[in-house]
């Protein structure tokens, strides 16, 4: 077990965004977090990465409590995320975006950077090399000098994944990576996730594209109105009546009967 989410509740004023949600993610698996719009999935991501604190409950990552830490410390612990609404650094080049991702794994300060000490130059070399490797992994190596802002939508999503991978995470959080993608792009993304999984990475995935989720996830949890209504393998989820109800609504015959 790599991540344990324990009885998380989150209230925004009078709105209860999450109620007592718990789940565990095992090392090396792709775990899906699904549910209709507004079910609280992104809120859960924001709590795991400490963008804001939970009202009650805690998040534990490899025996360390994440709750109460700052977002940058959580990245250093080995949890990195992408955003639902892409948040790249728009005026940086593709390569620079990925180099920023390596910030917490590198250490040059003001003086070594200004004096260009040997250690700093070697670190810069290795940062660039690693950034290029990651761009090759996500298939953007040709575009390293373009501004992130000028990339196509699907490319921006891939770049966000590369940037997150640059921080050497043990757990990668992907927030709707297939949103807005066409079928071909979604297929490419599927292959990319498979490749990332082979790098001994654990992935927690929020996604609406059901065929993709069913194909790529080992296990998943389903949220509806801030509550966990089901958990299991794709097969189990597919046949779970509560999930079908949450997504499709109750069948009319039931109501009539």
């Amino acid at each position: 077990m790599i991540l344990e989410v324990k009885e998380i509740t989150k209230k925004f004023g009078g709105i209860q965004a999450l109620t007592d949600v718990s789940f565990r993610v095992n090392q090396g698996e792709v775990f899906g977090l699904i549910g209709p719009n507004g079910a609280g999935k992104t809120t859960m991501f924001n709590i795991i990465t400490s963008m804001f604190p939970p009202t009650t409950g805690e998040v534990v990552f490899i025996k360390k409590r994440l709750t109460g830490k700052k977002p940058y410390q959580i990245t250093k612990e080995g949890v990195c995320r992408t955003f639902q609404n892409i948040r790249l650094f728009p005026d940086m080049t593709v390569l620079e975006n990925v180099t920023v991702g390596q910030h917490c794994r590198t250490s040059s300060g003001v003086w070594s950077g200004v004096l260009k000490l040997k250690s700093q130059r070697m670190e810069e070399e290795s940062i660039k090399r690693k950034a290029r490797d990651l761009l090759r992994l996500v298939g953007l190596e040709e575009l390293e000098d373009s501004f992130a802002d000028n990339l196509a939508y699907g490319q921006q999503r891939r770049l966000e994944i590369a940037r997150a991978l640059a921080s050497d995470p043990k757990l990668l959080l992907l927030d709707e990576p297939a949103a807005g993608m066409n079928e071909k792009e979604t297929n490419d993304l599927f292959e990319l996730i498979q490749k990332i999984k082979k790098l001994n990475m654990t992935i927690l995935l929020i996604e609406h594209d059901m065929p993709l989720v069913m194909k790529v996830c080992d296990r998943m949890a389903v949220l509806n109105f801030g509550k966990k209504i089901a958990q299991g393998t794709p097969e189990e989820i597919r046949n779970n009546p509560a999930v079908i109800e949450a997504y499709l609504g109750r069948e009319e015959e039931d109501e009539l009967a």
Partner: protein
Amino acid sequence: MLAELINPYYLQVLSFILINIILGISIYITLSTGQLSLGHAGFMGIGAYTSAIVTINYDLPLIVGILLGAIVAGLTGILIGLPTLRLQGVYLAIATLGFGEVVRVLFINWEGMTQGAVGISSIPHIGRELVTGLRDTGFTADMIGIRSNQLISVLVFLILLVVTILLISFFVRQHRSRVGRAFAAIKMDESAAEAMGINITYYKVLAFAQGALVAGFAGALYAHITAYISPSDFSYHRAVEILIFAVFGGSEVIAGPIFGAIFLTSMPELLRDVSEYRYMIYGVILVAMMAFRPQGLIDYNMIHKLKRLRKKKDQKTIDEKESKRHDIGS
């Protein structure tokens, strides 16, 4: 011959341009993490007063006074930076504006130390001190055939030029390093930067303190070049003037505020004939900038295009050489 070429007046204008470039750099550093500060006149004043007071009252050497002025301003920057970190944009601007006014009022009212609104005069002058020092070693202005006041202006100008070049190369290098990338990331998207593992508190305070330090440094140099300072030198107008270097020239790349400082300091000199209208011209320029080019004259895109152009040119010369070699070969 040399004596006719050196005009102390022009050299003084050039010296002020250099000081303004340093001030432009100071606002650029703070802006490079997206923090809008109107307190730089305050930091400049702290540097100027600190250096003036310690060199007059405690007879410290000029260089110690100037460094001390910069350090005190930098420390104040940390003190101001920490609590105002949560503020952004216009709110931070107002808070720092308030800070600047507090500093100015302090200069006016702390008469025992600052001589109040009258200001401090007969501050040791960098050029004159140097010339005196040189005379002790046996070197005088006559030996190279110029007058003493010409030598003073030349020395001041050269010292400022070296200092400015060192500062620019410092911050250009910093910009290209891990720290510079962290600054840029914070400026473009603070939450994303933090999610990528950047300690934004640390880097924002660092940028704020660096900006304050450099502004204090410029202030200390200013004090020892004009030999007279008063609280009105560091008023709100100065803060806006510093900010305008970056607004006009552009704050995205360091070349922006440098260009802004050069242009806006030399313009009044070039426009002597229409000097009555020069503030109107300033105003028109600013309104036009906000309407047509809010990011300033020099921006990322421009630098990027220039780089690409140079790359292409290099490629072209390589190609030409290749083809020539080919011709010779065949």
